[in-house]
């Protein structure tokens, strides 16, 4: 019989991440369970919904080795409420698990570990990337991905890996975000393009944000990310990603440099009085200033003016305020460049002095 000892903090942190991977109801019961396995002096907990899987090492003491699976949700709910004391977890007859902590004893009915699906691991050739950088690239793009189910191939991030550059791309058909770096070691010899589903992407940022080195390995239809403690596997989204490079404009002639905080504050405030049906917000660029304005019928209107730090031009253009706020809010710099062409063409936003991040937003047609 397996017997393990954890601190509440270690166990809870790990279960929380895994619980979001474990499948909800209405699927195979084993998929709503987490696998807890103590072998070779290591305790590993794993969850999968057959699309995304995570295995992770949890610090703890092994009294006796063994394995079991148990409802991810129940385990997480119980561990969350336990006092901050030593948690003992052991298996008993008939695939039951017994948790004791303080004065409490909790017995949960589990399922045998041999029913749990086999999980892939890193095998063959792999790339490495700094975990913090990977997560920052994801953070700079993920908000632009589509969550609409009709265009399933946009419900993920496109990893565009070439010998020269690594790009992570997201679009929902109205806006696009691209983060670039040359951090993939070694760079691939041939271009590789894959779509990683959003669910996996969110788990990557939870799991690898502090890893010094994440190994990335491509299997057939799957991608594996791993550091010393955790392995995350995801099925790839099938489908052809749109040719995004062709639509990044190079002929936007109005170039403005703006302060991120000033612009973000102004956009957020004025957006409060935008039309709740469209969230449309208007930018009027003139005489070295950007006038942000919005109007909502039967509600009111607002405007605010932000000074242009440098650059000049004259243009009127409208956007979905939410797209602007999200794009500006994800820029990691003090200033950003706003490049415009006309009121019907895509705007380009980039952090000043950094070519590693770009957002593209299509405007809304101005009402005359």
């Amino acid at each position, binding site marked *: 019989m397996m017997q393990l000892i954890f601190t509440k903090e270690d166990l809870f942190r790990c279960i929380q991440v895994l619980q979001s991977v474990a499948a909800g109801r*209405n699927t195979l019961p084993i998929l709503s369970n987490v696998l807890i396995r103590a072998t070779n002096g290591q305790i590993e907990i794993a969850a999968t919904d057959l699309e995304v899987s995570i295995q992770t090492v949890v610090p703890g003491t092994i009294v006796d080795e063994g394995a079991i699976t148990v409802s991810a949700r129940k385990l997480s709910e119980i561990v969350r409420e336990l006092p901050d004391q030593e948690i003992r977890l052991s298996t008993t007859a008939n695939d039951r698990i017994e948790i004791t902590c303080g004065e409490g004893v909790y017995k949960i009915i589990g399922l045998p570990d041999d029913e749990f699906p086999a999980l892939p691991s890193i095998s063959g050739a792999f790339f490495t990337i700094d975990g913090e950088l990977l997560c920052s690239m994801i953070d700079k793009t993920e908000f632009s991905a589509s969550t609409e*189910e*009709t265009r399933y191939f946009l419900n993920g991030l496109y990893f565009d890996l070439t010998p020269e550059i690594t790009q992570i791309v997201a679009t929902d058909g*109205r806006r*696009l975000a691209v983060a670039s770096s040359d951090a993939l070691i070694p760079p691939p010899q041939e271009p590789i393009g894959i779509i990683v589903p959003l669910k996996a992407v969110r788990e990557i940022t939870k799991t690898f944000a502090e890893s010094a080195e994440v190994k990335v390995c491509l299997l057939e239809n799957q991608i594996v990310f791993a550091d010393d403690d955790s392995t995350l596997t995801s099925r790839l989204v099938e489908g*052809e990603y*749109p040719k995004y490079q062709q639509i990044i404009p190079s002929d936007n002639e109005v170039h403005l440099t703006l302060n991120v905080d000033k612009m973000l504050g102004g956009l957020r405030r004025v957006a409060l009085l935008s039309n709740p049906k*469209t969230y449309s917000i208007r930018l009027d660029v003139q005489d070295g200033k950007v006038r942000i304005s919005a109007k909502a019928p039967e509600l009111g209107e607002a405007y605010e003016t932000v000074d242009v730090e440098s650059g000049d031009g004259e243009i009127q253009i409208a956007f*979905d305020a939410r797209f602007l706020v999200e794009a500006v809010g994800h820029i990691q710099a003090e200033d950003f460049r706003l490049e415009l062409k006309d009121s019907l063409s895509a705007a380009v936003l980039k952090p000043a002095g950094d070519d590693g991040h770009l957002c593209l937003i299509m405007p809304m047609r101005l009402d005359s």
Partner: protein
Amino acid sequence: MRHIIHADLDAFYAAVEQLDNPDLRGKPVMVGGSPQSRGVVATASYEARVFGVHSAMPMATAVRQCPQGIIVRPRFDRYREMSRLVMDIFHQLTDLVEPLSLDEAYLDVTGKVAEGRLPLGVAIELKRQVKDATGLNVSVGVGTSKSVAKIASDLEKPDGLVLVAPGEEREFLSPLPVGKLWGVGPKTAERLYADGIHTIGDLAQQPDEWFARRFGKRAPYVLAKAMGQDEEPVKTERTPKSISAETTFPEDISDPEELGDVLNRLALNVSSHLERKEVKGRTVTVKLRLTDFTTLTRQTTLSTATNSEKVISETGWKLMSAELTPGRSLRLLGVGMSGFAEHSDLPQQLPLPFSDSMSQG
């Protein structure tokens, strides 16, 4: 007094196929999915119906019953086009047209009769116009209510014309099996049979208390229908809050592919209905009724309003397939669209100018 016509195109999909392809005429045609992929029959021609083939039957069964049957893949665009032609003819006759699906509509022709036309003459002319314009046969029922007209149109299919004269509704309905009555499904009919109620006449003779006990809140409606006196108006093109289509299966279905076929057909219905009303919706809803009568509805809202059959069926599929687990069967499936765009003059979000597959949807 009202004069209502129920017009129903005969074996619509199959008839269009026979019309477009002379080689199929006079032969058993089964429009639907392939028997290998567990497709179902959408429509069977009358030549195939002789062999017991009917719509919603698994194609594999149909092939066994009628091995010489010719399987034709459905061409929904073409059916929609033909449907539009037919509906246009209906609209030339009266503004009060209530389409039920691509091949079926109620028409309130009270106005024509008031102008001095005879209901029979209106019906004959309607049949002739449809035949001349499209080559299709339409079966027509004429009566003073929707339910009588509907039952009448079904009685002498194909190419039928049945008129129920005012005042003769009860007599007309009386000998018909109770299951023909609108609102009496197969399950209810079975229970009525067990009670010794076989015909609509038997039903109409039951005392009020019995009706109240048997049908609860629906009692007055069912009674009125059994007497041939229902007052339900022909509902015209006013924009409703939602448009949906649903179907109850003769036998529960668990096969995802089979359900997918049904879903596609429902999506087509919803999409053509949206098109007729010239509205686009943003919220797609699916309704699933399980074997134990639990009803689930699942919905999602799209970023842009659409009436596209493809988008509705793909979105519906996503919603439905998430609920399909091994062993779970459905007795009813429905698809609906709501969240209609009200103001087309609001500023419109422009799409990124992708050249490839992105333009759809």
